C-alpha cells in the first residue's frame, strides 16, 4: 500500500524542501520506491536540492494540463535507482494546479511508488492545502522558535480538518520533525526547549535535526544530506527519522548529546 506523505510547516525557510529530499533519499536508500513531488509552483527548489535542475523537461503542471504523460515528467535520480522526482513548474503560478488534476496525478503515483512525498509551499493558502489534501501522513517541520511553532500549530489544525482523511472522519497521522536545532543556543535559552515544543504541539516526535553546515553544503552540491554526508549528524538524524517513518523503533537522540534520553519522551508522546 502506497503512503502519501506531506512535508509541511506553515512558515517558510524552516527546512521543508531539505527534509523532503533527505527523507525521500533515505527511504529510497533503504530499498523503498519513492517519488518526491514539488508543490511549490513558481518557486521550485526541490530539483536544485536533488541536483536534477538541468534534467527537467516536463513538470507537474504539464502533466495536469495533459501536455505530458506522468512518465515523461518523472526524473529518475542518478545515484539512487528507486528515487524519482516530479518537479514543479517555475514559470506558471500556483493556480495552474487544479484540484481534480492533483487528485488524478496522486492516484497514478500511488500505483507506482511505495512513498509519495509532497513538498509543501509555505503558507496556508491554496498551494499548501493542495499539497496536504491527499496525505495519509504528515511530517510537520518546525524550528525551535515561537513563530515557527505557532505556524505549525495552525497547520496541524488544518491537517485535522481540511484533508480528505479528516473529511472522511479518519485520523491523520502526524509527526514532528524539529530542524535547525542548535544545542548551544538551546542551552543558553535563546531557543524554545524541545519539551516545550512537544508540549505545545502535542504530536509525536519523529526526529531532531541539528543546524549544520553539512546541510548547506549538501544543497549547494545538489545532494540530499543523507547521500552527501551519511555520517554527519544531520544525515544520521534524517536517516533515523526515515526509519521511524517506516515503523522501525529507533531510540531518539538530541544532536550533540551522546545519550538517548529522549527515548522515554518519544515513547510517552506516541499518541
Amino acid at each position, binding site marked *: 500500500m502506497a503512503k502519501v506523505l506531506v512535508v509541511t510547516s506553515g512558515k517558510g525557510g524552516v527546512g521543508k524542501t531539505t527534509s523532503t529530499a533527505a527523507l525521500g533519499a533515505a527511504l529510497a536508500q533503504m530499498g523503498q520506491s519513492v517519488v518526491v513531488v514539488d508543490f511549490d509552483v513558481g518557486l521550485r527548489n526541490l530539483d536544485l536540492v536533488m541536483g536534477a535542475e538541468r534534467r527537467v523537461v516536463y513538470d507537474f503542471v504539464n502533466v495536469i494540463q495533459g501536455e505530458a504523460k506522468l512518465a515523461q515528467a518523472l526524473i529518475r535520480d542518478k545515484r539512487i535507482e528507486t528515487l524519482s522526482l516530479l518537479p514543479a513548474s517555475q514559470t506558471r503560478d500556483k493556480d495552474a494546479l487544479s484540484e481534480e488534476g492533483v487528485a488524478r496525478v496522486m492516484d497514478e503515483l500511488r500505483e507506482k511508488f511505495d512513498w509519495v512525498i509532497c513538498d509543501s509551499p509555505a503558507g*496556508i493558502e491554496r498551494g499548501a492545502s493542495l499539497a496536504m489534501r491527499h496525505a495519509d501522513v504528515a511530517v510537520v517541520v518546525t524550528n525551535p522558535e515561537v513563530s515557527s511553532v*505557532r*505556524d505549525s*500549530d*495552525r497547520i*496541524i*489544525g*488544518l491537517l*485535522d480538518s481540511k484533508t480528505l482523511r479528516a473529511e472522511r472522519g479518519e485520523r491523520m497521522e502526524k509527526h514532528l520533525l524539529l530542524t535547525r536545532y542548535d544545542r548551544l543556543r538551546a542551552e543558553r535559552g535563546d531557543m524554545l526547549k524541545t519539551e516545550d515544543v512537544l*508540549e*505545545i504541539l*502535542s504530536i509525536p516526535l519523529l526526529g531532531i535535526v541539528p543546524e549544520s553546515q553539512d546541510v548547506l553544503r549538501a544543497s549547494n552540491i545538489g545532494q540530499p544530506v543523507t547521500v552527501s554526508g551519511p555520517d554527519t549528524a544531520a544525515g544520521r538524524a534524517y536517516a533515523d527519522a526515515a526509519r521511524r517513518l517506516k515503523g522501525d523503533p529507533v531510540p531518539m537522540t538530541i544532536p550533540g548529546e551522546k545519550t538517548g534520553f529522549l527515548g522515554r519522551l518519544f515513547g510517552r508522546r506516541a499518541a
Partner: protein
Amino acid sequence: MSAQPKDKSSQKPALRFRGRSFLALSLAPQQPLDAWLADLDAWLERSPGFFQGRAVILDVAALPAIDVASLRSFVADLDARGIRIMAIEGGDAGGAGLGLPPAIANGRDSQLPVAAPPRGKPAPPESTTLVIEDPIRSGQSVFHPRGDVVVMGSVSSGAEIVAGGSIHVYGVLRGRAIAGIAAQPGARIFCRKFEAELLAIDGLYKSADDIDPTAIGRSVSARIIDDALVVSPLD
C-alpha cells in the same frame, strides 16, 4: 433520484418563508463614541476575527439623542472594522431610514433554557455542554453560544473559544476564552494551567497584560465580582 413526470403547475417554484431564530451578538455603544471605539479597537487587536461572519445587532438604547447622519457614520466606522450590523435596536424605529440597517425591537437577552420541574417520568434533559477531546489549534475558533464548553486538551496561542456559558480547559489555556456571551454574568472560566492571551465574561474582558502575573502557569478560575473580572488561583 426518481424521474417522475411533473405536471406544469407543480413546476412553479413555491415561495416559502421560514422563521429562523439564532443568536446575534449585540453591541451597546456609549458616549463618548470616540472612546468607545478606541476600546473596541483594543479588543479587536486581541481578537481580530471575533465579529467576522457573525450576526451583530447595534443596540442604541444608550444613545437616545443620536441623529441619523451620526448613526450612519458610526455604522460606517464599525463596517470599516469588519463589523457588519444586521439591525439596529433600541432606537426610534421609524427614524433610521435608507442606508442604515433595519430597526428591530423585542430582542431578548438569551439565557440557557431553565429546566422545567419534572413531572411524571421526565425525558433526560438535552445537554448544552460541548465537550472537545482534541486540542484547539492556533487559528481555530470554537463558537458555542448556547452552553458550556469543556476542552480536554490545550487551547493554543491564537485560538479562541466563545461560549454562552462557562469554559473549562483541562490542558493549558494559551489562547482566548470568551465566556458568558449569552448574557450570563454568572459564567466562569476554569483552566488547569493559565497562560491565556485574553479572558472575557459577559462582555467584561482582561488581556494578558492586565492580569496578575503570579497567576501565570497556575490553575485558575475567573469570574465576575462587582462588575469586575477577577482571576484567582485554584490551588
